[in-house]
C-alpha cells in the first residue's frame, strides 16, 4: 500500500517549463513522510497531483501517472477521492465554505453521503479527537489560525480518509498549535493506519512523528531517503536544506550607523478583545541592520502590518520624527515593505511594470529595469503577470523591486521564507549591501537565530507579547 509516481511530468501552462519533470518514486503508507526542498521545486504540485486535484483544477499532465493504493485518484469523483485522500492546506482562511465549525464538518460528511443518523455522532467524535469540542458552534471567521487548522483536521478525522496530505499546514499558526496538530496526526497514523505525506520546508514541527524525509529539487525527487530520527546536518546541508545553527558567512560592508529613522514608542497592537503586542519600544538607525526573532504567531507580521497601516495600533510610531499617522504626502514611500507573501506587494500588471514602479523617478528606468530583470533571471518573463511566476520567482521579483526602490527604511517580513541555503545567502547579501550602501535602516524578521546573528547589527526577540532587545 502506498503512492507510486511513474515518469510524472506536469506544467501549469504549455509554454512554461514543467514544474514536475520526469519524476519517479514511491511513498509507503507505513511511514510518516515529510517532503521538503526549496520554494518552487515542485513539492506542493506533487502533493496536489497525488491527491488527484491536479490536473483537473489546473495545469497539464504531460506524461506519466500517480497511483494511490493502486488507484488513479484524478479519474475518481470527488466523494470517492475524499475517502482515499484528504488534504490540509497552507492558508487556513481559504478552505471552508460553511459558517460554523460544526456545519463545516457536517458539510464534509454530507458530501460523502454519510447516513444522516450517523452524522451527529461522527461530528462529536471528530471535535473531541481534535480537542475543540467547545468550538463546535463558533463562527469560522472568529477562530485563530491554529483553531482553523484544528477544524480542518476535524473534517479529515470525520471523513476518515486512507491518506492525509498536508501542504505546509503550520506555516501560519503558532508553535503550540503546530505541535498539538502534529501529535494528533501521529495518533491517526499509529492508531488508525492513515498514511501521512506532508510538504514542509521546516522539519522541526515534525520531529517525533516523522519517519522519513524526502527532498525535491528542480521538479525531481532525490533518490536519498533520510531517516527522520537520525538526520545528519552535513547531509541536509549538502542537499541545500537549511539546518538550524549552520553559519551563512555573510559578505557585507561594516556598519556605519546614522540618525534614528524609525522609532517605536509604547506601541500596542490589539487582536480580538486582547493585546497581541504591548509596550513595544525600539529605535532603528540609518545604515543599521536589525533582526526580529519570534515564533510563528508571536506577532512579527502583525507588528509590520501595523507599521504599514494595514492593522490598527495604539501608541506612537515615528518615521524621521513624524508620526506615521500624520505623514505628509512627500513622506509616503519612505518606508518600503517586503511582505512574507510576495503577492501582497505586487502592484504592476507585468513583471517589468513591477520593477518600473520602483524606478519611475529615475531617468534611465527602462535600462535599469532590464538590468535588474536579467540579473534575477526573469527578463524572459517581463511581459507576463507577476502572479503567473512560480513562488521562488515571485520572491526574487518582490525583493528586487524593493531593493531597486529608494526608501529610507526597509521592512522585510521573513525575506528568506522557504528558500534554500544558496538563495537565502543571495537574498540577504543583496538586502544588507543595499542597507549599507544607500544608508537605509533594514529591519527583517526570521525564525532562524543563526541568520539573525550572522547578518544583524542588533537582534530583537518577540517574547511574552513584547519586543525585547537581545544583543
Amino acid at each position, binding site marked *: 500500500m502506498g503512492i507510486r509516481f511513474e515518469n510524472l511530468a506536469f506544467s501549469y501552462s504549455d509554454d512554461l517549463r514543467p514544474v514536475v519533470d520526469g519524476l519517479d518514486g514511491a511513498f509507503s503508507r507505513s511511514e510518516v513522510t515529510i517532503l521538503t526542498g526549496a520554494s518552487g521545486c515542485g513539492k506542493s504540485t506533487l502533493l*496536489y497531483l497525488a*491527491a488527484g*486535484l491536479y490536473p483537473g*483544477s*489546473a495545469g497539464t499532465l504531460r506524461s506519466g501517472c500517480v497511483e494511490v493504493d493502486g488507484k488513479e485518484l484524478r479519474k475518481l*469523483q*470527488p*466523494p470517492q*477521492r*475524499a*475517502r482515499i485522500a*484528504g*488534504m490540509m*492546506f497552507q*492558508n487556513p*482562511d*481559504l*478552505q*471552508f*465554505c*460553511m*459558517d460554523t465549525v460544526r*456545519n463545516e464538518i457536517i*458539510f*464534509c*460528511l*454530507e*458530501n*460523502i*453521503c*454519510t*447516513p*444522516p443518523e450517523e*452524522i*451527529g455522532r461522527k461530528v462529536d467524535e471528530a471535535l473531541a479527537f481534535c480537542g475543540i469540542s467547545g468550538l463546535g458552534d463558533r463562527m*469560522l*471567521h472568529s477562530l485563530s489560525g491554529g483553531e482553523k487548522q484544528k477544524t480542518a483536521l476535524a473534517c479529515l478525522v470525520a*471523513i476518515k480518509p486512507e491518506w492525509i496530505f498536508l501542504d505546509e499546514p503550520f506555516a501560519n499558526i503558532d508553535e503550540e498549535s503546530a505541535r498539538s496538530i502534529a501529535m494528533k496526526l501521529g495518533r491517526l497514523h499509529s492508531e488508525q493506519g492513515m498514511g501521512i505525506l506532508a510538504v514542509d520546508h521546516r522539519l522541526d514541527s515534525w520531529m517525533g512523528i516523522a519517519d522519513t524525509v524526502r527532498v525535491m529539487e528542480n521538479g525531481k525527487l532525490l533518490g536519498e531517503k533520510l531517516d527522520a530520527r537520525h538526520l545528519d546536518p552535513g547531509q541536509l546541508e549538502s542537499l541545500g536544506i537549511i539546518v538550524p545553527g549552520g553559519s551563512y558567512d555573510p559578505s557585507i560592508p561594516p556598519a556605519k550607523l546614522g540618525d534614528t529613522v524609525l522609532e517605536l514608542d509604547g506601541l500596542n497592537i490589539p487582536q480580538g478583545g486582547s493585546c497581541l503586542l504591548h509596550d513595544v519600544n525600539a529605535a532603528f538607525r540609518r545604515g543599521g541592520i536589525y533582526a526580529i526573532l519570534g515564533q510563528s504567531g508571536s506577532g512579527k507580521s502583525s507588528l509590520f502590518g501595523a507599521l*504599514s*497601516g*494595514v492593522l490598527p495600533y495604539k501608541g506612537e510610531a515615528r518615521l524621521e520624527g513624524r508620526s506615521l499617522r500624520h505623514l505628509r*504626502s512627500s513622506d*509616503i*514611500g519612505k*518606508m*518600503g*515593505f517586503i*511582505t512574507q507573501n510576495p*503577492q*501582497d*506587494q*505586487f*502592484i504592476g*500588471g507585468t513583471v517589468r511594470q513591477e520593477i518600473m*514602479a*520602483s524606478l519611475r523617478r529615475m531617468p534611465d528606468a527602462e535600462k535599469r529595469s532590464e538590468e535588474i530583470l536579467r540579473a534575477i533571471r526573469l527578463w524572459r518573463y517581463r511581459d507576463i*503577470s507577476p*502572479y503567473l511566476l512560480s513562488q521562488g520567482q515571485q520572491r526574487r521579483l518582490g525583493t528586487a523591486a*524593493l531593493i531597486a*526602490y529608494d526608501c529610507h527604511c526597509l521592512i522585510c517580513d521573513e525575506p528568506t521564507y522557504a528558500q534554500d541555503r544558496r538563495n537565502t545567502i543571495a537574498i540577504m547579501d543583496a538586502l544588507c549591501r543595499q542597507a549599507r550602501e544607500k544608508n537605509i535602516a533594514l529591519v527583517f524578521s526570521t525564525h532562524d537565530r543563526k541568520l539573525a546573528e550572522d547578518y544583524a547589527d542588533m537582534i530583537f526577540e518577540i517574547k511574552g507579547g513584547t519586543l525585547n532587545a537581545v544583543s
Partner: protein
Amino acid sequence: MRSLNPACKFISLLAVTVVLAGRMDPLWNTAAFILSAALIIVSGVRIRTLLLLLLPVALAALGMFFTGYRFTADSAMPVSSAAFLSGSSQLVNGITQASRVFAYAGLGYLFALTTDRILMVRSFRRQFHLPQVFAYGLLAAWGAFPHMAMEYRKTKAAFRARGIRVFPVSPALLAPLLVKSVRWSDELSIAMESKGFSARAERSDSSPAKVHLRDWIMLILCCAVLPAASILI
C-alpha cells in the same frame, strides 16, 4: 420568523411586494413597514442595528419623496413657479413614494435579518431545486468576503510602500484585488473538492428543510388572503 421555512418565507414576502406594487396607498405601505420592523425586533434583532440599517433607506425615501412631490401625474412641465406651491395630491404622491421605499426595505430586511443562510441554502435546494454548485459556491464566497477588506488595505499599503498614492476606487488598486479574488475562488473550489464536494454527485442531508403548517399559513395569508383583500378594499 426565524423558524419559518426560508423558501416559503421568500415566496410569501415576494407576494407582499407584488401586492404593494399594485397599490398606490401610503397606509398599506406604512402598515407593511411597521409590521416588518415589529417582526424583526421580535425576532431578536437589536433596535440600534435596525435603525442603522434604516439610515440609507431614509435617505433614499427622502429622495423619493421629493421626486414624487415634484412630479405628480397632474404637475405641469416644464418647471413653473406653480410647481413649487404645495398641493395635496403632490404631498400624497410624495408620501406614497417614500413609504414604498420603507415598505420594500422593511420586507427585504425582514428576510435578510431573520433567515439563517445555511438553512436558506438547504431550503432553496430542496424546495426550489437550486443547483448545489451554485448554492454552496455562494456560501463559500460569503465566507471569504470578510477577507476582502483586509486585502484592500494590504494592496493600498503596497502602493504606499513605493510612494504611490491611489484613490479608493482607482483601477490600479482594483486590478490586483480582482486577480486575488480569482485566485481565492480557485483555492476555495479546490478545498471544497478535496472535501468530497461535487457539482453532480448525490449528497446526504442531515437536516432536510421541511414545510410545516406555520409555513402553509404564512403562504396562504400572503399569497391568497392579502391579494384578495387588496382587490376588495
